[in-house]
Each structure stands twice: as C-alpha cells, then as structure tokens.
C-alpha cells in the first residue's frame, strides 16, 4: 500500500545511476483514493509546474537579452487562423478559371452593370415586433429595397411574381419566438439561394454610441476574408445587393466580415481625420450569419439542387477547418 499512504515524493525521483535507469514504480496523483489528499497532491504538483514554467521563461528571457541583436526573432504565436487547414478551394487572385467562372455565373449581369439591384425583404408568417423593426432597418441600410408583409403566401408563388416585377433579390427573414434567427437570400432570375442562421441581432436602438439614421446614399461595401470558392460566391451574392457606384458623399460603409465561418455584418459611417486616421461610428443594425446551405436554383426545399450543405458530422470535426 505504498501508493495510498501519506504524501510521497513526486514521481520520477531521478535515476539511481546513469547506467541502470531505475525509476521507482510510477506514481500518479490520480491514483490516490482519498479526495482531500489527492487534491492536495494535485495542487502541489500544479505549483511545481508553475514554478518550473516561470524559471524556464526567465532563463529564456535572460538568454535573449544576452544575445542582444543576434537573438532569434520572436516566435509567432499560433492562432486558429494561422493553423487553419489548407482548403484546396482557396481562390488565388490570379486564377483564370475562377475569373472565367465568375464572368459567366449568375451574377455576371450585375457585375457587367446590366441590372440594377432591387430587393424584396419579407419575413416568415406572422412576424413579431422585433422582426418587423429589424426588417425596416435593414431596408434603410440597403438602398432600393422594399419590405412586404407576408400573409401566409407560399414562397414558390411569390418568386414568379417578383421576377415579373423586376426584383433581383429576395431576402426572407425567418423568425422564431419573436426574434429573427434565419435568413434566406435568393438571387432572383434563378440565381443561387443561400440559407443562413442569423444570430446576435442588434437593432439600432440597442447599439451604443450610434449615430443618426443612415441616409439614402448608397453605401460602400467591404467584403473581408472570403477566400474559398464557396466564400467567393457568397461574397458576390452580398455584393450584388448593393448598387454599383457607392456615393462617397454619404460616407457610409456596409461590411461583411468573414471570420471562422461567421459573417459579421456592420454598418458604419466613417470620417477621415487625417490620411492615417479614420474614425468610424456605427449606425444601422448588426447581425452575424452562419451559412447553412447554398442551393443552385431559387428557393426550393424539396427538389432543389444543393451546392453545399453544412453537415455537422463531417464538417464540424476539426476545429481548424473552415469552409468560407
């Protein structure tokens, strides 16, 4: 009963002699049955670890100072973005194939200035106050957009009507328990349909230090970090919502920032204080989106052809793998 007795010196008390590597039978803190003693031993072990770590740090720092200029450069800390698993669909800016694809996909008419974006914003059935207000604010943010109340109409019947009236995009905000929690963005003349999960929606009055209302000027668009093919197409979908020529007089900017597969939307007003300093002030609603699925045609839950679905079992296995 040597392991269960009173505090025994820590494991690995050192070899008896260099040739005969004789270690005492390994003793681990977790094998003590008594919880109090085990806790005590664990704390002691932790303190020891901390001391060692501190000593190591000090030593390294001294070495570094001693070397002076010749010291090796500091190691770059590992972040999730650094360690990201390389995605083979990452878009290279000079890729011709991608450029060709983009020139001929559904957004080509928009990017060739043939169509002017006109957006219809609607909700699921019986929207509650918060969703309605969010829709209104979203309509002020996106120029040339209209909010229509959905009275139990089937999406499949709305879509041909929208196409007939020259709408280019359809946004449906899904609501659950009085808060908006989903967004379906559909590019109309049979363009792709993206279904997002929307979270942390903040209306204008909930944003601190906000400015005045967004004006009617067309905002600029910033799309950050959309690297893969999928990310690229989603980025283009967002870009297609806004008119081509932003009015710089308005000094408004709408940002879609992708970070680890979460797309953060912000709406700011900026002012250049000098050529190296810019001040931004948040107006407008904010929300985050997470892509759930991308369909090729317009909204069709049964017979649609899905280009990408988020499959939890397969895609959420690695913490360093992102798809957008």
């Amino acid at each position: 009963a040597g392991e269960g007795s009173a505090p025994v010196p820590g494991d690995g008390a050192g070899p008896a002699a260099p040739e005969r590597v004789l270690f005492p039978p390994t003793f681990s803190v977790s094998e003590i049955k008594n919880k109090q003693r085990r806790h005590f031993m664990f704390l002691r072990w932790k303190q020891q670890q901390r001391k060692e770590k501190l000593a190591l740090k000090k030593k390294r720092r001294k070495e570094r100072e001693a070397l002076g200029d010749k010291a090796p450069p500091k190691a770059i800390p590992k972040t999730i973005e650094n360690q990201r698993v390389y995605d083979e669909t990452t878009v290279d800016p000079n890729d011709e194939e991608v450029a060709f694809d983009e020139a001929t996909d559904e957004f080509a008419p928009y990017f060739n200035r043939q169509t002017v974006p006109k957006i219809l914003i609607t909700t699921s059935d019986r929207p509650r106050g918060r969703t309605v207000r969010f829709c209104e604010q979203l309509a002020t943010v996106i120029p040339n957009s209209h909010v229509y109340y959905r009275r139990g109409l089937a999406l499949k019947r709305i879509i041909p009507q929208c196409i007939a009236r020259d709408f280019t995009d359809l946004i449906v905000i899904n609501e659950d328990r009085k808060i908006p929690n989903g967004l379906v963005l559909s590019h109309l003349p049979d363009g792709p349909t993206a279904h997002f999960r929307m979270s942390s929606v903040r209306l204008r009055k909930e944003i601190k230090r906000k400015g005045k209302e967004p004006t009617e000027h067309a905002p600029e668009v910033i799309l950050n970090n959309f690297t893969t093919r999928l990310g690229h197409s989603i980025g283009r979908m967002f870009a297609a919502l806004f008119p081509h020529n932003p009015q710089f007089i308005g000094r408004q900017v709408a940002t879609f920032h992708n970070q680890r597969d979460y797309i953060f939307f912000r709406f700011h007003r900026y002012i250049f204080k000098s050529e190296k300093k810019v001040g931004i002030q948040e107006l407008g609603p904010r929300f985050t989106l997470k892509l759930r699925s991308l369909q090729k045609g317009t909204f069709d839950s049964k017979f649609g052809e899905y280009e990408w679905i988020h499959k939890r079992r397969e895609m959420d296995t690695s913490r360093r793998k992102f798809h957008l």
Partner: protein
Amino acid sequence: SPQVVWSMLGNRQFCSYKMTTKTQNFCRNEYNLTGLCNRSSCPLANSQYATVREEKGRCYLYMKTIERAAFPRRLWERVLLSKNYEKALEEIDENLIYWPRFIRHKCKQRFTKITQYLIRIRKLTLRRQRKLVPLRRKIERRENRREEKALIAAQLDNAIEKELLERLKQDTYGDIYNFPIHAFDKALQQQEAESESDSDAEREEEEDDEDVDKREFVEAEDSELSDFEDMDKLDTSSEEEQEEEEEVEKKASHSKWKGKTPLKGPARRKRPYIEIEYEEETEPSTKTKAA
C-alpha cells in the same frame, strides 16, 4: 350493479380515470361521452352506454348493453357512421332509438364536434406546415461560444479602418479627400531626385515665396477639423510639412470643400466657432514669421 359501482368509484374509492381539478372532475376514460366525471356519463357506472369516436378520419358509434356485460371482449359494439353529416345523425338516431335522451343528445353533439375538428385538420394540412427543427443544446452552446471567439478574433473596427485607409491610399475616393500626403512625399522625393543638380538657392526662394501664400492654406485646411487641440498641432506640423512640399497642394485645397460639406452637425457648428479663434491666433504668428 351500476349503482354500487358508482357509489364506489364516483365518491368513495379510487377511480383511475378520474382527474380532479379545483372546479371540476374529469374522466379520462376513452369511451366517455362528455369527458366529465358524472353519474350519467361514467361508462363504468352505466350498463347501457354509447359514445362516438373517430379513427383515422372516420367516425364510429360505440354501444354497450347490459346483455354483454359479462363478455368484456364483445362489450362495445361498433357501427361505422356515414360520411354525410345528416345521414350520420339519422344513423345515430336509428341505432339509439329507444335509448335515454341524454345519451342520444350527447352522442350527436360529440359527433358534430368531431366532424368540425376533422374539417379543420384537413384545411390546415393543405396549408404550409411549419417544420419544427429541434435545437441541440450542446451544439447551440458550442456555436455561440465560437461566434464570440470569432468576434474577438475578427477585430472588426481595426479591420474596417484598415480597409478604408487602404482604399484611400489607392485613390478610390479620387479628389474628395485631401490629405494624400504620402503620395505627395513620394512625388516630392521623385522631383528632388530629378532636380538635385539644380541649385538649392532657387528652391529656397520658391519656398519663401510660397510661404506667404501657404499661410492662407493653413487656415482653410485646419478650420475643418473638429478638435481645436488637433488644429494646434496640425498647424505647426503642417507648416513644417508645407515648407518642404511643392505647390501641388494648392490645387487640392480648392477641391476639398466639395467633399467636406456633409459633415455631421456638431462639426459644422464648430467650424465658424473655430475660424474666429484661428484668425486671431495665426495673424500674429504670420506677422512674426514674415518679419
């Protein structure tokens, strides 16, 4: 006998079908006609009883008589009612022809209610159904936590500011904003490199001549700033910079006004306020420098 049964179940002993609430007693027996626990509507305490029940959209009339009380398997006799509402009512009547009025009436009432709710079900299924997708708590928590971390890692404000400054550098805003001093520095260096052979004296004379004009620029430029303190600093720095720079800045200052008009309210209010102060300050300074 039924009276004994009722005296036991109804009042004194335990009936497993009975549900009591503050105001009323309910009966959970599936053959119960009204759903309440009464002497007249208890299927256990009445030897002659009838109910209407529906199965898969079709209504049946169930009847129980004293003769079959000993055969539990054959106790309840089932009659399919027609789909036609009036015909079914007639069928109920003809099946329960010599039965007590209460049971007949309640059967017909129950049948009416059942048909109405069946119609409603059929109408609702034709509409779009709301599909309820169950949330998984662990996954929700995980995603929320990851979203928070992603938000912190994103450093949105910095990213947006960087992007805007990039765009400013790359001249996407064109002539609206007017401090591309970096570009001018570069242009300046180029020109210095070109004209190094020229004498320095010429340049000094040019600078002297321009100084007088440039003082005016200082006022115009700095009056647009919202902070008075910044203006002080910029005043000195810009004067120094301008002594180095060339005339290119002259053109820029005129076009600056176009972009700057839609400033926010407070800034606009500040401008005349600042201008007044500024004139007082710079005039003595220009005088000293000119002298």
